[in-house]
């Protein structure tokens, strides 16, 4: 194991390395106060960056496996490629930036930190994200999403930009916000009413919403080299939970 410290970059060839060994090496490197790690030839290794609690930057070349950054607490992961299912699972703090698309259940149960996906995501992105006090997870998706976006969402901010849709084209996702009882979805573009879960209300953005959207779109644009003004020219709608405790009376009598 190469000792590292200060500003040095540790490079690892992950080809054929089992996920447990790879994550053990990452924990070891992080505990040596390295600032940056590059993982090359990553192909399906799971849980990369899991439970790291140091502000280390992990740059991934290849296709990381499921549950990338699960339980991560303050590190930064940059993926040059696509991410698979469960990216950002129960993340507490930190950033995941994916220069590509991502699979299903992105950001599930995240309770803090930021996830930026440049292209499309699969089913159930943002499922059961939650917030408490100043812990507020953020998920920004540049492309479009498949069904059940923001399912059971309990907190946090989800932004869907639809940058790859043509003018006037609706998002295709159905069951958006089904079971949603917290947090907010800012959606650039349009959807039909039937595409929304019954718990979801639609509103125009207010100035305080625009402040949030401008800031996060700015960060998204900086990560992926877009022009933020062009993105912000699009029409946004706000999707919010109509009830914060939809089943509060279920067992009341």
């Amino acid at each position, binding site marked *: 194991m190469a000792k590292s410290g200060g500003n040095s970059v540790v490079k690892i060839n992950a080809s054929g390395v089992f996920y447990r060994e790879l994550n053990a090496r990452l924990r070891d490197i992080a505990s040596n106060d390295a600032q940056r790690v590059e993982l090359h030839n990553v192909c399906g290794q799971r849980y990369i960056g899991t439970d790291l609690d140091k502000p280390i930057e992990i740059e991934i070349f290849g296709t990381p496996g499921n549950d990338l950054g699960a339980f991560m607490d303050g590190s930064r992961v940059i993926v040059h490629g696509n991410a*698979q299912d469960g990216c950002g699972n129960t993340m507490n703090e930190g950033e995941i930036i994916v220069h590509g698309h991502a699979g299903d259940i992105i950001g599930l149960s995240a309770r803090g930190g930021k996830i930026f996906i440049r292209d499309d995501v699969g*089913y159930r992105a943002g499922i059961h994200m939650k917030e408490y006090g100043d812990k507020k997870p953020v998920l920004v998706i540049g492309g479009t999403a498949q069904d059940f976006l923001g399912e059971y969402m309990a907190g946090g901010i989800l932004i869907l930009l639809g940058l790859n849709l043509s003018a006037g084209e609706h998002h295709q996702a159905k069951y958006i916000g089904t079971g949603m009882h917290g947090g907010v979805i800012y959606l650039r573009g349009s959807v039909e009413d039937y595409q929304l879960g019954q718990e979801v209300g639609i509103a125009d953005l207010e100035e305080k919403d625009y402040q949030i959207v401008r800031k996060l779109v700015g960060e998204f644009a900086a990560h992926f080299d877009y022009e933020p003004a062009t993105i912000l020219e699009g029409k946004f709608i706000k999707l919010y939970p109509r009830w914060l405790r939809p089943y509060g009376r279920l067992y009341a009598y």
Partner: protein
Amino acid sequence: MKDIRQINNPYNDDKVIDACSIFGMMDTTGGRFSGEAIIRAIANMHVRGNGLGGGFAIYGLYPEYADLYALHIMYLSRQGQQETEAFLRDRFYLVLDEEVPTRPTPAIVNPPLVWRYFVRVDQHKPANQSEDDYVVNRVMEINTRLSDSFVFSSGKDMGVFKGVGYPEEIAEYFGLEEYEGYLWTAHGRFPTNTPGWWGGAHPFSILDWTVVHNGEISSYGINRRYLEQFGYQCTMQTDTEVIAYAVDLLIRKHNLSIEIAANILAPPFWAEIERRPPEEQKLLRTLRQTYGSLLLNGPFTIIIAHRGEMIGLTDRIRLRPLTVGVKGDMLYLSSEESAIRLVCPELDRAWSPMGGEPIVGILGQPFEPRRTIREMIVDAN
């Protein structure tokens, strides 16, 4: 039989989270390739399984016997083998029989005997029955009436190799890198509701249909009872078996297209049907009324294959993953994108289809998205 708990849960955790792995690859020009790539791809998803089942289906496997039914049969005893071989000699014209070659593999313990037979039906069948139906009936007889004998596959120019072990161990045991085909599917198993045994490994097969599956079919009971009315007997103790028989019934016997079959196995929800144009509603309602008992409930991703075709399909709300990759004439289907990238790093395109949307690779045709039901109605008019 291995002790499932020792492998699945050596530390006695309260809960073990895992899932099956499936992979398929096809050269749509028909070029044959070895098992080397798919063995590496399915092994890359090793942690999705637990070593209690692995298997492969290969098409374009026996070009020198392409007109003969190739029966791959597993025997749990010599007596079963003698009984079944007497049955085969009586019911078929036997062209060739041989033990399927294997090599000692430390991980494979207590393997059954696996033999293959190349047979013709000839004058054995009744005049009013098709050869395929005759073979299906004989397979059901072997599986249900003859002792210790189970048919792994019974199609032409194809075969199934499977057993208890990780898929890469099964591949080593049968030496699958030595075989060639234009279409391969593979499965790594994590048995959930049923035992891990050799017959219960995937792919499941009847004639040249094979199915590999990740998920569970909670409608197994009703599907099974419906299929029994058409003479299909479920004997492999695993829910996936019904899918193989369902596609044989729908596509081969009832002559339905894959688009129609997909709308039977994974139909749109009623609320979705009500938003469709009237003619399409009528078709979708008719399908649900006629074939409601073949609706597959529960989470699934499946890869169905038969001669010349590979089909990927998920349940309606995609509760199990599927990634599609295309590179030139090659079509890949996988539980995880990384497994495709391992064997083909530079894809033309990689994406996940919507739940219930079939992805179909056809021999002799470059890959293209399938027509929707709506487009088919417009075409028919």
